[in-house]
């Protein structure tokens, strides 16, 4: 394991060295920046505050949209699972909406909500909402009936049944899909920011604007940010899984 880490590190180093010499000997096209050039762009943008600002604006949009999606998705999923009638009615619709790529909503949202941040937040919400609803519904449905019955015989109220039995019981399905939902939401955010032309800030915007100046350095800097945020989210969900499922011993 450790050995492999070292090898991977060496590989990355090798790629950077190759890239460096390729740009020194003009093998790459002129507008392709060298590793040091990329690093310089990254540092310059980081120090003059543009990169953090782009990143923070994006993160705020992501977290707003995603947390609304979590709350609403959890509620709707819970309601769907508790009512057989509603779930028969709404399940096909959910399947239909799940199969629409989130970015496909963006043109529609732009016309309805304008070219600003609202569109982005709603796109993020849509990216997370259907996935979370679906997995909450599935998670609660797969809880053994005996657990629900046991709780019922002990006389718990519906609210406590939901919060003490159904909610923790659905987590093995919800948490992995939260990872998926965050991925969809992040994708939707980048896409929506590219298309919402009235925005000034945002990581997707930054990458897309750089296209006009053929500025690959800025794009690479943006990609590094996008990658780090995605990894951070992954780590956060993994930690959450360890703290809950791992501790309770119900990990799948």
């Amino acid at each position, binding site marked *: 394991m450790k050995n492999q880490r070292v090898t991977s590190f060496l590989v990355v180093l090798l790629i950077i060295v190759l890239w460096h010499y390729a740009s020194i000997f003009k093998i790459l096209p002129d507008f392709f920046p060298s590793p040091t050039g990329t690093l310089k762009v990254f540092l310059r943008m980081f120090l003059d505050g543009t990169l953090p600002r782009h990143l923070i604006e994006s993160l705020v949009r992501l977290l707003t949209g995603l947390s609304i999606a979590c709350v609403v998705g959890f509620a709707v999923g819970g309601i769907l699972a508790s009512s057989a009638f509603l779930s028969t009615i709404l399940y096909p619709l959910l399947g239909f909406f799940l199969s629409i790529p989130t*970015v496909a909503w963006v*043109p529609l949202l*732009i016309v309805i909500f304008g070219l600003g941040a609202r569109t982005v937040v709603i796109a993020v919400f849509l990216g997370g909402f259907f996935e979370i609803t679906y997995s909450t519904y599935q998670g609660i449905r797969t809880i053994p009936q005996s657990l629900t019955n046991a709780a019922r015989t002990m006389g718990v109220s519906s609210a406590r049944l939901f919060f003490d039995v159904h909610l923790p019981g659905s987590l093995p399905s919800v948490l992995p899909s939260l990872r998926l939902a965050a991925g969809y939401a992040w994708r939707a955010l980048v896409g929506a920011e590219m298309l919402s032309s009235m925005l000034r800030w945002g990581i997707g915007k930054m990458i897309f604007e750089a296209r006009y100046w053929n500025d*690959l350095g800025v794009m690479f800097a943006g*990609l590094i940010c996008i*990658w780090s945020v995605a990894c951070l989210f992954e780590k956060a969900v993994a930690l959450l899984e360890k703290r809950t499922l791992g501790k309770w011993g119900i990990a799948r």
Partner: protein
Amino acid sequence: MTQDRKTSVKPFFLINKKIIYPTIFIGLLLLLWEQASGIGLRAQLFPAPSTIFRQLITMLLPKEGSSILLCHLLASLRRLTVSLIIGSFFGIIFGIASGLRPYIDALTKPFVSFFLPIPGIALAPIFMILFGFGDPAIITAGSLAAFFPVLFNTSSGIRTVNPTLINAARIMGATRWQKLVHVYLPWSAIHIFSGFKLGISRSWRTVIAVELVAAADWGLGYMIMQAVEYLQMKVVYVGIFVMALLYLFIEKALIGFVERRTIYRWGYSPEQGVRQ
């Protein structure tokens, strides 16, 4: 069991609540929308379902020899297919190599862990600079979106193959090729398949997304973006509807069919499959 089936000879859509209730509900929703459009909802933004349906028919019917909608659809499908073929072909090859050889795994790992979490559309501007608008940028982004999930799943599938089986094959004198074809591939098929499914879903999303920003002539994403510029909302709804139908078809009919024919028949249960 067979007795039960024989007694219920009524057409099954009449007795199946799972079909009839949602149909009624969706019908009611559409009716409500139909009535509200133009009164409560602005017809410009939310055209009535009948208008959208009429638009769908108009676009579907051939005009001057070719149907506009089908042309857009086929353009997107062609890009998806080409991306999938390129992406999964190289994905499987590199996946097998890195599953079998640790040093190749170390070589591919940095790429996988960098590109797997990055959305395909974030790479689009780079390809737009390098290759310009249109097919090259879209297909490169789409292939990469399929490549990395397939690679990752194939290599982890190959690594989970029970070493006893491989030793058994070796004792029986299997050549390298035989070991690969008769032991490694069938035993990691479910992983490869789930990687492929993930690849389809990612590639499709990426193709549509990149079409929104970088398509030059045809494609569903391009169609939607173009319609927004002329404020033809009914075309946008048609586009979204067709996309959902197409993806449902690919996922349920095509993948389901292949799954039933291959991995279920080889003795994997549907439950083992990984969703998405």
